[in-house]
């Protein structure tokens, strides 16, 4: 088991290296640091000196891959690729273009993100599974048909509409909770209710439909027929047999997104003004802060690969039929 995990973890290294090289090419080769500097300082009438100072302040004045003016190992380490890209592997994100420590910002901002993402995940999972089980219980009746129609309709509404409509209805018309903002500690709850609610409602359509398909697939299996033939009631069959077996795909589907919860939700956080990693990324994109975007790309990839690793492990844990190969 441990050997398997180690092997899987080692497999992540070339992938992360690939991500690293890709971001390096995207951020430094496609457009040179000069272009970035010009973009930040304003397009017209930028003196070459100003560009040089801007680059020197942020360490972009080094050569890309190979430094001829240095000696020995420094020829490779004193370059943009080593300083800016490879350092990400140590989780040393450096400082942003506006000179803040990215690592510190991330560690501060991930908690608000989690405060939204975890409740959305748990409540959403409970709501979706309950609803899907209900549909599976009433399968091939009008309840089933209309529930599926409802799910498709809910899926077809843009997520932006849930947010804007929810804010308008709950906050502006009913004045139940503040429209946006955030606070520390327990007073944050009143700011979190609405985003969590909207996150759950927005996910019902796709989630329920997906779980319904899983349940219906299990319901046609032989062991379910056997259970019914034994004289078990439909409720027992559903809860003890179908739900248990359908939990395998559900669980692995959840495990894969667990690490990505840290990244937060871009849209929700920026609409509700929550200082999480999602709004951090959005702000960085609109301020064109490349250092932050680069760090977030790398962090996102690490978390995604961690998710894949966890999925593999959880598969082997819940389903003994899956062999370690």
């Amino acid at each position, binding site marked *: 088991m441990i050997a398997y995990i180690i092997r899987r973890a080692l497999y992540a290294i070339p992938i992360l290296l690939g991500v690293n090289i890709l971001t390096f090419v995207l951020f430094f080769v496609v457009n040179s640091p000069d272009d970035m500097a010009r973009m930040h300082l304003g397009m017209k009438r930028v003196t070459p000196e100003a560009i040089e100072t801007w680059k020197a302040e942020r360490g972009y004045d080094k050569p890309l891959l190979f430094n001829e003016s240095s000696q020995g190992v420094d020829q490779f380490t004193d370059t943009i690729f080593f300083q800016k890209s490879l350092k990400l592997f140590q989780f040393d994100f450096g400082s942003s273009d506006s000179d803040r420590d990215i690592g510190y910002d991330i560690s501060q901002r991930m908690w608000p993100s989690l405060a939204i993402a975890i409740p959305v995940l748990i409540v959403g999972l409970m709501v979706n599974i309950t609803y899907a089980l209900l549909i599976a219980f009433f399968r091939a009746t009008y309840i089933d048909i209309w529930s599926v129609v409802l799910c498709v309709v809910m899926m*077809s509404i843009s*997520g932006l509409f849930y947010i804007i409509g929810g804010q308008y209805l709950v906050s502006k018309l009913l004045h139940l909770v503040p429209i946006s903002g955030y606070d520390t500690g327990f007073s944050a709850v009143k700011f979190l209710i609405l985003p969590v609610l909207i996150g759950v409602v927005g996910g019902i359509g796709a989630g329920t439909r997906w779980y319904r398909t899983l349940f219906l697939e299990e319901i046609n299996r032989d062991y379910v027929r056997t259970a019914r033939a034994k004289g078990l009631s439909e409720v027992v069959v559903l809860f003890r047999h179908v739900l248990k077996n359908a939990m395998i795909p559900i669980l692995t589907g959840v495990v894969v997104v667990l690490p990505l919860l840290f990244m937060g939700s*871009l849209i929700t956080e920026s609409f509700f003004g929550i200082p999480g990693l999602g709004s951090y990324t959005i702000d960085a994109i609109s301020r064109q802060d490349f250092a932050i975007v680069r760090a977030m790309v790398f962090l*996102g990839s690490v978390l995604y690969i961690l998710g894949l690793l966890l999925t593999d492990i959880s598969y082997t844990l819940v389903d003994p039929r899956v062999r370690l190969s």
Partner: protein
Amino acid sequence: MIGEWVILWTDALIFLLLLFSTAFGIYAARKEHLRGPWRLVVRSRVGVSTLVILSFYVIVGLLDSVHFYPLVNSVEKGGAQTQSAEVISLFDHLVTPLRERQEKTYSAPLATHLYAKENIELPNGEVIRDYPRLEFGGAHLTMPEVEWSEDILRLSAMGVIKGLLVSIVITNILIMLLAARWNGTYGDAAKLLITGKTVIPWRTALITLMFVILILFWSIELSSHYHILGTDKVGEDVFYQALKSIRTGLLIGTLTTLVMLPAAILLGIMAGYYRGWVDDLIQYVYTTLNSIPGVLLIAAAILMLQIYMSNHADEFNSLVERADLRLLFLCIILGVTSWTGLCRLLRGEAMKLREVDYVQAAVAFGVGHFQIIVRHILPNVLHIVLITVVLDFSGLVLAEAVLSYVNIGVDPTMNSWGNMINSARLEMAREPVVWWSLLASMIFMFVLVLSANLFSDVVRDAFDPRLRSSR
């Protein structure tokens, strides 16, 4: 009227796509295994009614994809016709009144007065503060307060009557065609149609078509005198904007797939068929690309494009061209982030297919790899490709809105539902609320996405027998 034709990049690609789908349609019509599922699609009631709605969207999108420089009467040259500097599309040309009747600023749907109060100078020199009349909306009314409701009713009735007439004509033509095809009388065909006993659900199709036509004529009638969905901040007709956005939505949904298909099919089949190091390499490439969160990769790429465009501003002839290239680039980068799913599916399928008896037989006969892939593997994975293309469409349309909200979507000067929502969301804080832009884009997007979702379900059920049996 029409000056020089312009072919934008996306126009060319969309017509290439149309050519491909027509060719595929002709190919599919000859092969029973491809024709069968399509027959199931057109025999389902949901299938035909969504098809009608989707084709309305497609027609608008296609009309909006034929661009040219219009000829205008220039004042300097004494009324002689000169070529305008602005590129417009055939669709723009058809709805010229909608495009040109600009108000000053916001006005509510069907309004006759502006949204905000202004200082108005009366003929006797007195200045009062009131809602000024719109320049075009309801301009034919002398006493808007009294005549307004009656005028709206009259125009609506006119639209409905015209729509009904056209629907009746279409129904009759269809009945006659069906009668000729079945070698029956007009009466028999009409009876079958009205009782809904035809194999292809013509009745459902006709009812949907009637709805579309009624709405179409109603809006034509009303928009000749009003702004039926109001005007936006700079006084542009919201209905026009929403219609123009159809093209953007369709392009994002289809071109993205077109861009990613060759890579996904080629690499997916190669990985599954050759196995070994080819498989490892291709798997490595798509795992790497997949591990970067999609939004961030798009953001990074679009940021880079912005820098490039602002540093090389002189390379673009017009704003339209620039916006068009950005749209194309967005499609490409969306394709890069979304081809991995299809690639993985095809790899698995090709892996299964290479062990199948007929492929083994072909190998034994000494048929080359390329021949085997083209002749045996590719035709057998086409249904997966088709299902993915149709399923991805609605997700891409929704993604456009989100990306435009984050400012990494289409060019801000381009009409798109995302841009409409983005500019409208700040207006929700106003008192009274400016809701029409938001609602218009949401409704247009919702109808398209819902039809696409329902249609893709029908297509998937028809092409995937395994799912059909489990239902």
